[in-house]
């Protein structure tokens, strides 16, 4: 301990005596450790930390599966079947998302809401912070209307310390608040209101898949056993001809992390590589510094220091560096996590991401490991030097032994190789991102404003009233100056909502349970024109397509291709199995649009006129002649003009939605590009450092060469050539590593192969240029050597 304190004291003082070296080393390490800490805090939250629910290892998502559809939400009858028949689950709960307009007190407000089964919260764990949860009888139609509200809504809308028993009006209906949920519920988005199901099988038939079902496994977290059990239950249900569908279960934690897992693992690998490069750089600095400390080390040996003691002392200095770097890195990570959280709005469990004890322990561990990693080789090298030579009067003090120079070269080659791997990864993600944006989305998102409207059923229970509201609103909005066109749609493209229903095609038969699925959309007549969706054949809707006229439908190209590849779909009749009833005649085919994401394929879709099948929840889309956001006030005024109690929610532009839909891809691309740029910079610094030392060592040789007639260009060529050799070796090694490694990226790529030759060549070229530039500066200095001075110097 005594020695440790002494070593720490001397180490700290030695580092303070070389502020330049210390600052560069600490900053390099801080960047490496900071990036690792920030990404680890996300990895820890999403992949390692259990969900904040009761015994989360036994919670699973239970979904429907059918031929051609791997996994779909459950229908209400399915949920009831599973609940009744299953021995696999200790409990089952379900929910679906919806919205409710809160009226009657203050400004009307559209609230995100969950319709839940009474047993959901008891199964998951969180219980109300105030009041009680739902009782099973409250799930039945006709039961008293009760609601649980979120902590946030309570704080925002209710001034009273207790809201229990308070009547509130949701969607025009009176409800009683029976409880307040605690903050930080980790599923179903961030709902403000929870209402019991109150479903009956007539309104929610077997073909309508809309429910998220969660289950708690009786057997424990053994998924193989649980999967076998649900498969046998599905087989029983099929044998009894209840259904022809299957059941698929996924651990809830895995489901919540979803698509982010591969991107996170890639980023975690990337920051690991950045840290390795940072270590190589600091090791290089230490090796260069060890040359100037040869004499000190020799004296220490001469006065009795053993080699192990010297190594310990040098390692202590490295650890001081890495711990200070780690501390600074932690501050950077703090800032980085804030930045990540604000940039990664679509990350799951984002509100839980923070720097906690686990992350601190990780940082401390990484800092210690880093200190050993970059400090060990220089310490071994320094302590094994020929110290007798260093003590001789006039002995060489600044030279680097050939072994040390070789080690430094090896480190630089590794840095170039690692940087190349990262740059190639970043290059592939950038190219994918560009491909996604270039991908034809099938509509024009520019200058389009979208606002959600959910009409309360208490005032708009009848379809005619719903149709009349939207009809009048569209007429008013269309008259506004600056509006090029307005329309309504039930599911906005890229809006995050989609439903599909079973599709009947006249003259074709499928078993009832195996109907093909198609996305369903209710739209107003001008919808295709307002969004710029092109008509392929036939016609779109007109204001004459009303309830009393022929019921019509427009299909998209995907549906036409899949079901009418050999015939003309125009004039054929279809029937969607949910909202609509009876046959609709196909009058037109429109182009496919990207509904679920720019990088996801278009699914078959059916559009029907909202006037023939009105609904209470629609999104108003308005194409502006200028700035669409400038219209928000005027459009809102028109909504209130039609009904002053009608709230407007989720105002956004289509361009924002496009940006949001590529958000996760943009985030991982930006992060990987940032890390790759950092790696490139560190590698350039590394090459510069090695070449500078080499030039300083070769001053005499260069002087002699110049005295013998070498021109400045010859000297530059000599030095740059040496750097180029290292760079080429690094490129070779990097390419050999990158070729197999980039395959791990495949899942994140879009429209570009993991071994894309253009990216590999382009990135190698970029790295070569940067490396040669880093060599050029010391080369230019070498070429300015005064030959006579250099010779005399020696």
């Amino acid at each position, binding site marked *: 301990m*005594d*020695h440790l304190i*002494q070593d720490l004291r*001397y180490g700290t*003082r*030695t580092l303070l*005596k070389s502020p330049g070296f210390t600052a560069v080393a600490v900053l390099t390490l801080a960047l490496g450790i900071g990036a690792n800490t920030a990404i680890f805090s996300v990895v820890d939250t999403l992949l390692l930390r259990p969900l904040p629910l009761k015994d989360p290892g036994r919670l699973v998502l239970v979904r429907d599966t059918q031929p051609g559809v791997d996994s779909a939400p459950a229908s209400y009858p399915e949920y009831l079947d599973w609940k009744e028949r299953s021995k696999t689950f200790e409990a089952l709960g379900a929910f679906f998302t919806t919205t409710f307009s809160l009226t009657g007190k203050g400004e009307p407000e559209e609230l995100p809401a969950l319709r839940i089964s009474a047993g959901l919260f008891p199964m998951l764990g969180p219980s109300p912070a105030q009041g009680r949860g739902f009782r099973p009888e409250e799930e039945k139609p006709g039961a008293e209307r009760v609601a649980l509200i979120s902590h946030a809504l309570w704080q925002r809308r209710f001034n009273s310390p207790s809201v229990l028993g308070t009547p509130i009006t949701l969607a025009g209906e009176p409800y009683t608040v029976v409880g307040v949920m605690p903050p930080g519920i980790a599923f179903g988005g961030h709902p403000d209101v929870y209402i019991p199901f109150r479903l009956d099988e007539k309104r929610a038939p077997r073909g309508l898949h809309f429910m998220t079902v969660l289950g708690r496994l009786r057997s424990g977290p053994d998924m193989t056993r649980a999967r076998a059990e649900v498969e046998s239950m599905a087989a029983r249900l099929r044998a009894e001809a209840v259904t022809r569908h299957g059941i698929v279960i996924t651990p809830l934690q895995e489901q919540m992390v979803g698509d982010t897992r591969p991107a996170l693992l890639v980023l975690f690998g990337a920051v690991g590589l950045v840290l390795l490069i940072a270590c190589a750089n600091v090791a290089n600095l230490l090796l260069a510094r060890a040359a100037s400390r040869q*004499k*000190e080390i*020799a*004296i*220490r*040996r*001469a*006065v*009795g*220091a*053993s*080699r192990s*003691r010297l190594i310990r002392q040098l390692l202590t200095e490295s650890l001081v560096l890495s711990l200070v770097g780690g501390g600074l890195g932690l501050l950077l990570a703090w800032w980085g996590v804030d930045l990540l959280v604000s940039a990664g709005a679509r990350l799951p469990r984002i509100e839980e991401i923070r720097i906690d004890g686990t992350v601190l322990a990780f940082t401390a561990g990484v800092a210690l490991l880093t200190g050993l990693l970059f400090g060990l080789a220089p310490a071994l090298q320094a302590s094994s030097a020929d*110290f*007798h030579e260093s*003590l*001789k*009067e006039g002995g060489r003090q600044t030279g680097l032994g050939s072994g040390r120079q070789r080690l430094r070269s090896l480190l630089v080659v590794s840095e170039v190789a690692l940087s190349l791997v990262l740059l190639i990864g970043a290059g592939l993600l950038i190219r994918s991102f560009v491909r996604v944006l270039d991908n034809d989305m099938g509509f024009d998102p520019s200058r389009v404003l979208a606002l959600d409207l959910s009409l309360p059923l208490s005032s708009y229970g009848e379809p005619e009233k719903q149709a009349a509201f939207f009809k009048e609103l569209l007429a008013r909005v269309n008259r506004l100056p600056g509006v090029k066109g307005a329309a309504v749609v039930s599911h906005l493209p890229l809006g995050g909502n989609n439903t599909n229903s079973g599709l009947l095609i006249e003259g074709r038969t499928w078993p009832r349970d195996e109907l093909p699925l198609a996305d369903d959309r209710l739209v107003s007549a001008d919808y295709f024109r307002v969004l710029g969706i092109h008509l392929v054949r036939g016609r779109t809707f007109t204001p004459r397509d009303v309830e009393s006229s022929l019921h019509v439908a427009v299909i998209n190209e995907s549906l036409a291709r899949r079901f009418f590849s050999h015939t003309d779909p125009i004039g054929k009749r279809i029937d969607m199995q949910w909202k609509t009833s009876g046959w609709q005649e196909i009058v037109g085919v429109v182009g496919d649009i990207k509904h679920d994401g720019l990088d996801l394929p278009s699914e078959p879709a059916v559009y029907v006129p909202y006037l023939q099948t009105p609904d209470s929840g629609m999104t108003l889309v308005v194409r502006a002649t200028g700035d669409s956001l400038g219209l928000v006030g005027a459009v809102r005024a028109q909504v209130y003009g039609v009904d002053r109690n009608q709230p407007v929610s989720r105002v956004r532009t289509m361009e924002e939605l496009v940006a949001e839909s590529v958000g996760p891809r943009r985030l991982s691309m930006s992060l990987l590009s940032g890390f790759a740029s950092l790696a490139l910079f560190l590698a350039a610094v590394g090459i510069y450092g090695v070449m500078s030392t080499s030039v300083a060592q070769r001053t005499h040789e260069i002087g002699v060469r110049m005295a013998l007639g070498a021109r400045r260009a010859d000297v530059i060529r000599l030095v740059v050539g040496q750097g180029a050799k290292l760079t080429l070796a690094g490129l070779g090694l990097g390419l050999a590593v990158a070729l197999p490694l980039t395959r791990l990226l495949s899942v994140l790529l879009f429209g570009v192969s993991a071994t894309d030759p253009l990216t590999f060549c382009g990135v190698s070229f970029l790295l070569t240029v940067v490396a040669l530039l880093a060599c050029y500066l010391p080369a230019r200095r070498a070429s300015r050597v005064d030959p006579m001075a250099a010779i005399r110097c020696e």
Partner: protein
Amino acid sequence: MIQLRNVERFFESGAGRTYVLRRVNLDVRERDFLTIMGPSGAGKSTLLAILGMLDGSWSGEFEFLGRPVHALNRKERAELNKKHVGFVFQSYHLLDNLTVYENLELPLSYKNVKGSDRASLVCDALDRFGIVGKKDLYPSQLSGGQQQLVAVARALIINPPLILADEPTGNLHSSQGQEIMELFKKLNEGGTTIIQVTHSEANAAYGNRIIRLLDGWIQPETRPQEAARKG
């Protein structure tokens, strides 16, 4: 105390072996004050480094206090050096980043002496060499003589039976040099064996034996009086 038999030191070079020391045979007894002299490049410092076990690349036999150094590994040699040898160099070789106090403390710390014992030994040394007032100064704040005084104090602090001094007065004014040599003489009279390398006949006169090296070969030994006469 020391016996060298046929000790040789050479470097391999492209043209073959270049010898620095050739078949060196030497006996040093306890309480000897031996001076090694010779022209530059004769192998004096190399011989001193071998005697101090700082250089391990030699052949022949070397016995130190009855232990066969030639048969010891690097670690065992370092242990012998740590316990029994104190070094004094021409350019003092104090550590610039450490204070006088810390420079003196260094060999004790490497000998794993306890903190409290270290403090009392360092204080004794500061007192003995009259440098108490300088204990918090850095080497760069001292004169050459003061630095060499600290270097000698550092060499002696572990109380070694053998002091090896390489041109100990080479960088000092004559009066400072004399002071250091007087100190060595006193130490020798107190029982410490001293081996010094020097070009100065006057410094050699403080000892009781002189060996001369020429191109790596030991010349017939002389006594200081004869040397002084020859000089």
